[in-house]
């Protein structure tokens, strides 16, 4: 039960019940998509790239568990207004959280990422947390991502 409380922290329940930046945005310049073939969950991520190469607006849609929705919601807050390069490095940071035990204590990782650290005790759920980030990455990179994210220019 302790592990569960650590997984479903208040902030996660909050974001999952009231997801921020939910919905398509308009106008939208880039779109990314992530599928979790094991459970059938899907996330779509929408971006508007500003003239200064920052993410002027970010939105997401999708069906998913509390973990994936909260992760998506917190992610949109984190990357909105940042530069593309920043958003990409946050994606890498986020993956590091689950692969590198010491990452948790890095002070440069935002708390809205660290809130998901409880997922580490539930290996089958790590994919739920990373799914929206893969969709973001797909949208950013314009290439087919490892998780079969697909992107198209203009959406």
């Amino acid at each position, binding site marked *: *039960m302790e*592990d569960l409380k650590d997984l479903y922290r208040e902030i996660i329940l909050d974001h999952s019940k009231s997801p921020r930046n939910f919905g398509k945005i308009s106008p939208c310049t880039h779109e990314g998509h992530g599928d979790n073939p*094991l459970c059938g969950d899907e996330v779509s991520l929408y971006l508007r790239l500003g003239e200064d190469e920052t993410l002027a607006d970010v939105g997401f849609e999708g069906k998913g*568990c509390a973990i994936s929705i909260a992760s998506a919601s917190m992610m949109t807050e984190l990357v909105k207004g940042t530069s593309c390069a920043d958003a990409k490095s946050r994606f890498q940071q986020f993956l590091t959280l689950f692969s590198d035990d010491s990452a948790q204590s890095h002070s440069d990782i935002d708390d809205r990422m660290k809130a998901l650290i409880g997922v580490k005790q539930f290996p089958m759920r790590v994919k739920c947390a990373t799914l929206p980030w893969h969709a973001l990455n797909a949208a950013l990179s314009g290439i087919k991502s490892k998780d079969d994210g697909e992107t198209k220019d203009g959406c």
Partner: protein
Amino acid sequence: MNDMTVFDVEKIRGDFPIFEEKIHGKRLTFLDSGASAQKPVAVLDAVQDAYRHTYANVHRGVHYLSQKSTELYEGARETVRDHLNAASVDEIIFTKSTTEAINLVANSFGQMAIGEGDEILLSYLEHHSNIVPWQLVAERVGATVKAVPIDTNGDLLRDRYEEMLTDRTKIVAITHVSNAIGTVNPVKELIAKAHSKDIPVLIDGSQAIPHMKVDVRDLDADFYVFTGHKVFAPTGIGVLFGKAELLEKMPPYQGGGDMINRVTFEKTTFATGHSKFEAGTPPIVQAIGLGAAIDYVNKIGFDQIAAHEQSLLSYATQELGKLNNIRIIGQAKQKAAIVSFTMDDIHPHDIGTIIDQAGVAVRVGHHCAQPLMDFYDVPSTVRASFALYNNKEDVDALVESIKMVQEFFR
């Protein structure tokens, strides 16, 4: 066959070592037999004995161990033949799984009988294993896959089925029991309808074999497939029953040792009977384990098993129905002991993770039946599936754990 006069579920649970395990310190409530069933000591012993006392490769040896191993392997084939009431052991082909069995038929029968413009008829209740192999063959030959729709209860639309049997339909492939929502299809009638138009039928029996006695001759099935691991047997073994008259005409599927008559680089001729479709060293010990599993369930008797499971199904349906916000998916007239449900606002994945902490093992997800999920417009469900070793306590533990979830997300 039935030498137990009363069905004693506690005695049966004692046959399954897994129930001695503690899960997160809790009693194991195993409600995931639909994905794969646990193994009784009788099966584990058969596996151990085969490796410890009589192991060698089969068929090609004249020495003692090879002969014993062959006798056990072929004995398992006879056990399966007898259990399905097939006419001949040549109609029983060992594969690694249902999936391989369906791929075998899709390829071999497909190569022989399905061409451009032809149709393959499935249903919305199918597991991906009974969809994707047909899509792959359809794409290769230019045929079309069609699917018979269902009503919201999860029952096949019979008039639609009859309409969809056309003269372009070259095969019907349909599940006996839906793994996702438990629907039991009236396969005997479905087969008769198809036969009235000379269309052969493959029945996916993966979820039927653990719960009911199947007689392929009574059903008049052309192909009947199932997978060992769901019927208390080891992983790595499956069965394809096929009518001899069809198998004889079908080309081989995989090439290799044991399926040949004579090999030269110029021309190779093939073996007859089941050998034609069993290329390479087969899953010898897994087949022996399957034989032991079938003996085990027959000893208990399917009348007893079915009665017990149906009473669990009613009880579970009733108790879950008392909870708030629960939607049971699939309310077919005839159902196997599978209950699929969703909860308002709480995603199956979260439910699965939370009740696991209470030792309750269910499956959450699309159950390899995405078209069916799409039909019900849910990405996934929670599925509790029952087997002969489940008891009332398991249902109670499930219901309690669901209440805990509701508490958690309140």
